[in-house]
């Protein structure tokens, strides 16, 4: 990991020579202004730099010919820092997405519409074929289930449809059915 450091003071190249003498490897050195130099160093050298040239904002009692500042990261490093700062948010997002995708494949509720008198029988039939709340929904056995519901006495029409996480079973009685 590297850090971008801005050094400020009169004749800033002298500060570079001092840092180099202390064994600090300076990379991408650029003169930003007449009294400012920007460079990159390894993160491990940061403490050493602040020991040589402290930031007077934090050590107002100590005189130093040069002041150093660590600049906020940019580019890929900034993206990584932001990502790390909001790790909880990203994790929450991923969990939410996973739960949404999972809940989409599950049946959370069964609703029987139309002839509600058949609700109990319909739920029993669905249960026999593994269609129960909090279980995954498959269309494999829909035809068999529909046929079984239609076999119920007086049922003339039946349809199974998944709306969100609700399984809607529409049951209609036959028009000329005698009860």
């Amino acid at each position, binding site marked *: 990991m590297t850090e971008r450091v801005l050094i400020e003071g009169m004749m800033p*190249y002298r500060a*570079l*020579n001092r840092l*180099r003498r202390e064994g600090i*490897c*300076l990379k*991408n*050195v*650029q*003169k930003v202004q007449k009294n400012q130099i920007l460079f990159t160093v390894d993160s491990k050298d940061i403490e050493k730099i602040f020991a040589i040239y402290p930031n007077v904002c934090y050590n107002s009692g100590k005189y130093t010919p040069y002041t150093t500042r660590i600049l906020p990261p940019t580019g890929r490093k900034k993206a990584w820092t932001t990502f790390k700062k909001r790790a909880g948010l990203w994790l929450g997002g991923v969990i939410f997405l996973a739960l949404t995708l999972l809940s989409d494949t599950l049946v959370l509720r069964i609703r029987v519409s139309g002839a509600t008198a058949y609700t109990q029988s319909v739920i029993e039939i669905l249960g026999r074929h593994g269609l129960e709340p909090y279980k995954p929904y498959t269309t494999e056995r829909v035809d068999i289930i529909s046929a079984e519901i239609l076999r119920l006495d007086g049922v003339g029409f039946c349809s199974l449809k998944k709306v969100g996480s609700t399984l809607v079973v529409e049951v209609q009685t036959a028009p000329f059915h005698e009860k």
Partner: protein
Amino acid sequence: MRLYDELAKSDAFLAFTGARAIFLPLRAAYFEGVKALGDFSEQRIEVCFSACSIAVEGEGLSIGKYTDGDLCVLGKVRTLSLLEGV
């Protein structure tokens, strides 16, 4: 340094008292045995060795690496001139 040995075969290799330099016109300049760095800007960088000082001139110059006697100057390096010394 193997890099220097390789480049020493080329015309861009310079050696002087206590220091060596490789000059790649319009690309870069590498120095070994650097004692200190003088004032620098995008057009000119002064490099001090134990026995002499050199000025690197060009356009868009920047220091790629400066560590323990090694200096790498990047940019359109046009000239190297001796400022003082042997």
